[in-house]
C-alpha cells in the first residue's frame, strides 16, 4: 500500500490502460514533451512515444473531433482539455457529433475527454468552471466526476474501457490535497453509473460530488459532534447516467435531502436531482429538498469574492442544521 494523491492515482490509471491496450492514445495541448499543464501525463511521451501522446495545436474542436474519428476506427483516444473551461470551444463537436453518433448512425465512439475543472483555487472566471450542467442535457454522453484518489483511478480506467464517450471531470483542488492508500497490483475499476455512500447516517442525506463532497463530509463530522445529527453523505461519482437507485435509497432512509454542488445554482444539476427525488420518493420527504450551491455569478478572482460565491463547509453546516430542524 502506498500513499497516492488524486493526481497520481489518475496518472496511474492512464498509465496502466496505455500499457494494457495499445489502442489507447492521448492527444491534447502540451500533453507530450511537457507532460500536461498539471503534469498528469508526465513521462508518458518518453514511455509510449510521440505517436501515442500527441501534442496538438490550440484547437479544442479538432481535438475532440479527431478523437471521435479515431475512435470510430477502433482506437481509444483520451483527449485532454488543458482546463475544462475550454471544452466550451468543442461544445458543438461533443454534443452534436460525438454524443449522437451511436444513436443516429450506429457508430461506436469509445473516447474520453478529460480535464481539470473547479474552483477554490483563485483561477478566476475562465479557469475554475464546472461544466457538468451544460452536458447533462446530452443523451449519448456519460459524465463521471471522481472525488477520491481511488475513484480517480478506477473511473479513468472504466471510462477508457467504456464503449461510449465519457466526459471525465477532475477537480484541480483535489489533485494534490487528497491522499489515499492504494493497493499496488490490484486492478481498480470503479463502475460507471454507481454512486457511493461516503458516510452512513440516519437523520439527513447530503448528495454531492467532487470538491464539495469533502466539504460535505467535513460538515457531517461537525454536525455529528456539535448537534448529534447523523448525516449520510452520498458521492454521486457518475453524473450521467444518474444512479437513481442510490439517490432514492438514501432519501427513503433519512427523509431529508440537501444537494450540494460547487456549480452555480440556476440550471445546475441539483435541479435534475431534485426533480427525480420528487418523482420517485415524494411521499418519503419530511422536508423540502434544499440546495447549497455557488451563487449565480461568473466566478470572481479575489479570494474574498470567490470564498463568498462558492459553497463553504460552514454554509453546508448551517443549511443542514436548518433542514434537520425542519
Amino acid at each position, binding site marked *: 500500500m502506498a500513499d497516492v494523491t488524486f493526481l497520481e492515482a489518475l496518472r496511474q490509471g492512464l498509465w496502466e490502460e496505455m500499457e494494457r491496450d495499445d489502442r489507447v492514445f492521448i492527444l491534447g495541448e502540451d500533453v507530450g514533451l511537457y507532460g500536461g499543464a498539471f503534469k498528469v501525463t508526465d513521462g508518458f511521451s518518453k514511455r509510449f512515444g510521440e505517436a501515442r501522446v500527441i501534442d496538438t495545436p490550440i*484547437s479544442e474542436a*479538432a481535438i475532440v*473531433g479527431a478523437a471521435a*474519428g479515431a475512435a470510430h*476506427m477502433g482506437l481509444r*483516444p483520451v483527449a485532454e482539455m488543458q482546463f475544462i473551461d475550454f471544452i466550451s470551444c468543442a461544445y458543438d*463537436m461533443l454534443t452534436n457529433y460525438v454524443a449522437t453518433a451511436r444513436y443516429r448512425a450506429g457508430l461506436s465512439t469509445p473516447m474520453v475527454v478529460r480535464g481539470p475543472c473547479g474552483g477554490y483555487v483563485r483561477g478566476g472566471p475562465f479557469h475554475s468552471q464546472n461544466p457538468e450542467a451544460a452536458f447533462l442535457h446530452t443523451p449519448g454522453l456519460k459524465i463521471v466526476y471522481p472525488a477520491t484518489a481511488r475513484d480517480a483511478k478506477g473511473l479513468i480506467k472504466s471510462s477508457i474501457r467504456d464503449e461510449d464517450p465519457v466526459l471525465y471531470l477532475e477537480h484541480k483542488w483535489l489533485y494534490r490535497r487528497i491522499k489515499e492508500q492504494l493497493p499496488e497490483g490490484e486492478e481498480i475499476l470503479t463502475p460507471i453509473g454507481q454512486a457511493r455512500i461516503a458516510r452512513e447516517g440516519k437523520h439527513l442525506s447530503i448528495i454531492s460530488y467532487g470538491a464539495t463532497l469533502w466539504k460535505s463530509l467535513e460538515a457531517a463530522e461537525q454536525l455529528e459532534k456539535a448537534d448529534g445529527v447523523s448525516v449520510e453523505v452520498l458521492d454521486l461519482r457518475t453524473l450521467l447516467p444518474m444512479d437513481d437507485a442510490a439517490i432514492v435509497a438514501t432519501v427513503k432512509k433519512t427523509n431529508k435531502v440537501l444537494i450540494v454542488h460547487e456549480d452555480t445554482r440556476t440550471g445546475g444539476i441539483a435541479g435534475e436531482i431534485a426533480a427525480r427525488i420528487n418523482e420517485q420518493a415524494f411521499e418519503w420527504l419530511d422536508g423540502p429538498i434544499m440546495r447549497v450551491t455557488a451563487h449565480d455569478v461568473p466566478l470572481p478572482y479575489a479570494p474574498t469574492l470567490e470564498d463568498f460565491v462558492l459553497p463553504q463547509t460552514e454554509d453546508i453546516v448551517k443549511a443542514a442544521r436548518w433542514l434537520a430542524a425542519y
Partner: protein
Amino acid sequence: MALPATRPTAAFPSGAAGAAGAALSSDQLLEIYYYLRLTRTLEERLVALYRQTKVIGGLFRSLGQEGESVASAYALERGRHKDVLSPLIRNLGSLLVMGAQPVEILRQYMAKADSPTRGRELNVHFNDLEKGYLGQISHLGDMIPVMAGIALSFKLRGEPRVGLVYIGDGGMSTGTFHEGLNLAAVQQLPLVVIGEYNHWAYSTPPERQFAVKDLAEKTKGYGVPSVTVDGNDVFAVYEATRFAAERARGGKGVHFIEVKTYRRKGHAEHDDQHYVPKTDLERWANANDPIDRYRQRLLAADMVAEGDLKDIDDRVRVEVDQATDACVDEPLPPAESALPGVYLDPPAADKLWFKVL
C-alpha cells in the same frame, strides 16, 4: 486523351494527370458513366417521390455536381477496409460509388424502418465504415476534424489508407474547418480535402463568403498544397484526386482540390433560387453539364460504343424502378424503436411514465 487539370500547380504536374487518365480501362469508363447516370436518375426519382410527399423533410439536389462527386470517389481505393470518405448532401454520387445502394438512399429519404439509420437520420446522413463512407452531421465543418481523426488512425496503424472529405465554398468559413485542416497538416495525415466551389452557399455568393478568388488560395497558408480543377470535367477531377490520394498514401500529407462547378438547383427543393441569374443556369446546363461532357468525350474519342451507354441508361432506369418498388410501401419504424441504442450500456432509454399510464 484526358484533359490536364486547369491551372496545374507544382503539387499536380499535368504529366501525372495524363498518366492517370490513360490508366482507365473502357470498363472503368463505363462504370463511371453508370454512377453518373445512376446519381441523376435516382435524384429525379427522389424529386418525383418528393412531389408525392413520400419524402419526409427536405430534398437536396446535386444536379450539375455529379461529375466531381463520382470522379473523386472513383479515384479512391474501394472495397472492405480501404479508403474512407465523408460526403455532403450534394455528394450522392460519391456515396453510390463507395457502394451505397439506391434502395438505401430511397429508404433514408422516406425514413423507412429498414433504412440504414432506421428512420433516425436524414438523406445521406448514414455510414458504412467497412465500405468506406462516414455520414456527415448537419453542422458544417465538423467532418473535417473527424476525418482527420480517421486519417490519424491510418497513420498510427501504418495502414496504406486515405481519407477524403468534401467541404463547400460556404463550409470553409467555419472554425472547425480551420482547426481540422490545420491539425491534419501539422500531423501530415493522409487526407484529401475537396472544396466545392459551386457558386452558392444557400443564397450567399462567394464574394460574401471569402475575400479571395479561389478556394485553392485558402489552404496554402496551412502548408497544404492545392489545385483548382474544372469540376465538371470528370477526367480532371479523377486525375487530381488520384494524384492527391496517392500522394497522401505515400506519406506526403494533406492535399486540397478545388472543384469549380455550379449548383443548378436551389439550396433545397423548396428554394426557387430567384437570386440566381437565369443566364448562369442556362449556360451551365447547356454548355457545361458534367454528364453530357463526359458522354461526348467518350464518344468523340471512341472510348466506348454509344450502345453501351444506352444500355447503361436502361439498366439504371430498371434498377431505380426496382429499388423504388422494393421500398416505397415499406412501413415507417415502430414508435418504440426510438428508445434503444443511445448507449451500448444501458441498452435503451427509459420509456417515460406517462406512456405507461
